[in-house]
């Protein structure tokens, strides 16, 4: 697998059904609570669904299905395969 680091790629920029990997450099931007719920650097994250008003986002990471707000998602950088 080849990774592209695009500085604009965050969880918020994923399309529905698309998968990315949380980048190590995002560690400080991930709230502790999200880390504890499995949103870890290196983890595969999938955008499952977007709420009708484009916010919040419904993601699946490390087996956890979570709804997070777009502003939080936009701070978490990802690598796309």
């Amino acid at each position, binding site marked *: 697998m080849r990774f592209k680091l695009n500085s604009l790629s965050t969880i918020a920029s994923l399309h529905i059904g698309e998968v990315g990997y949380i980048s190590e450099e995002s560690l400080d931007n991930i709230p502790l609570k999200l*880390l504890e*719920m499995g949103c870890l650097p290196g983890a595969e994250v999938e955008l499952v669904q977007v709420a*009708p008003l484009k916010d919040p986002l419904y993601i699946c990471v490390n087996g956890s299905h979570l709804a997070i707000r777009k502003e939080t998602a936009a701070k978490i950088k990802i690598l796309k395969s």
Partner: protein
Amino acid sequence: MSNNDIKVALIGNPNTGKTSLFNQLTGLNQKVGNYPGITVDKKQGICKLSATQNAVVTDLPGTYSINPTSLDESIVLKTLLKKDIKESPDVILVVADVENLKRNLLLFSQIKDLEVPTVLAINMVDQMAKKGISIDLSLLKKELNTEIVLISARKNEGIEQVKEAIIRCHVAAKASPLCGINHQIDPDYFTKLKEISTSYSLYELWLMVTQNSYPEAITTEEKKKLIAFKQDTSKLKKYQHKETIYRYQEINKILKKTYIVDKSKATDLRSKLDKVFTHKIFGYVFFVFLLLVIFQSVFDWASLPMDFIDSTFAQIADFAKSSLPEGVFTDLLTEGIIPGIGGVIIFIPQIAILFLFIAVLEETGYMSRVVFLMDKIMRRFGMNGKSVIPLISGTACAIPAIMATRTISSWKERLITILVTPFTTCSARLPVYAILIALIIPNTNVFGFLNLQGLVLLSLYGLGFFTAILAAYILHKTLDVKSKSFFVAEMPNYKLPSVKNVFYEVLEKTKSFVLEAGKIILALSIVLWFLASNGPSAYKNAEKNTIENVANKNITDAELQQKIASAKLENSYIGILGKTIEPVIKPLGYDWKIGIALITSFAAREVFVGTLATIYSVEADDEDTSTIKEKMASEVNPETGKKRFNFPVGMSLMVFYAFAMQCMATLAIVKRETKTWKWPLIQLFGMAFLAYVSALFTYQILN
């Protein structure tokens, strides 16, 4: 509860079946109390572990980690950190969901590091085959160094083994940490931390530093040293992040050896249902439809038992009146206490049905989808997707609704939700609306099929919701409360609701409503009765004066009795009170009699009808609404010679009741939840002001 009992704390992530396990372990031996000093409900139950050994099981709120972000979660920390020695558990029972074992083990690893004997119950193992999961149990036990039991709480499988494991674990009383957090992060730092005290585990000391929460037994010196560690907050944050990542690394290592998932076997009910329930149009349509079904059922299903309760209490009062000797005590019983208790009991059917729906929605996992759908909308008004649940529950009663705000982690969002929830039309407003609508709105159809009375009732519900949202928006823009807005909600798997869990939930919530509200309503009805049946000298002479006044007129005995009662009331303490406030409420179209009902309603809205019933000297018997209705319909305004309850007065009253904060029980709960009198007082005066102004405009425009 004896000293011999093992104290067990039940802890786990939300949606892991923790409640199912608690219900299986304790059955109906449950009670809800309060944590000392804090005001969150504590659910405890007695569990028979063996013939000779009992356990007291405390059900702690669901949490993903010991580090709290909401009021609910902070209870877990406080209990585990031995805030109160009497509360600290002998054995901790951690419940984990087999499907999400990795994340569940994070909490387990934190618990294990507290060095308290721990049992791990892996739940929903009946789903393993379906989800393609296999576990090497003996290796996992060894790796985690703990007692593990595979259970299926809903099917009552493995419960006996859990009990045995608790006893074994308690007897062995050994506990060792799982993750040595010190070496991996900063050995020097953590070695120094450990040196502060020998009475606590390293992880306990670390929690005291990061969470600023200290056990009762800590010495001042130790505390001073711990506080010194807190100076560098950015370092703390960094270390907490590192700690979490380290824990996950350890868990991954262990699970790699012991836990296999064959993903091809996973069925995908979740994504199919999600497509429907979170769809941009259908998702909302379904939600609105569901709300309509709920309200419809609450009124339809509840009407029969409510009528029954009503007539039963009337009969009890009648029976007491006829069989007890006449006197003050009998009057107190039949006019104060019995109707007072009846006034609480009558709401049980509606509240229980509403709680039933809410419990089912939560159990199935649908409520999380509503939170997801509504978060963006609610945020515009300074609230949170999670505020939807209190606003819906508020239509039954604001008390449990306000308690349901505890899951909202942002203080500002939670506060706004608490402040606006009393605007939603609770069941106590219904009797008031019902009688006023029947009086002033003709029972006709509009557009051929819509009943006008029903339409007015529906618009009153709409008015309540609309005002709540509007008030939230104003508070959002004006409240200067600093609080970080952070939102994360788990989207649990869909599942069929467990009858047992729903039953216990409804039972417990209804019971606490009856007790909380009951105390106040009962006390108030006694005070009311006293004020209405006592008074200064004019009251005592009322009977004599009335008889003298009508001496020459030709009236029946019944009419005379009625006139005496009215004269007595007018001169009783409560009558004097009504007369005093008459000038203030006159512009709203009310007289002193309505004024009395307004005053008494500040304790609880539903008292309105009963008070008017007493005032118009009719039997306070809701079953017989036609009489009180007729009385109200024939009540004449002496100044105009027309009906007192005309359209403008009725509308003005309904608007007043829609807005005014007339519920002592809610005020008490708001005080409890916000820990200050400031917010309930703002609520009381703000809402009263709004009610007065709106009612004033309504009356003046319509008149």
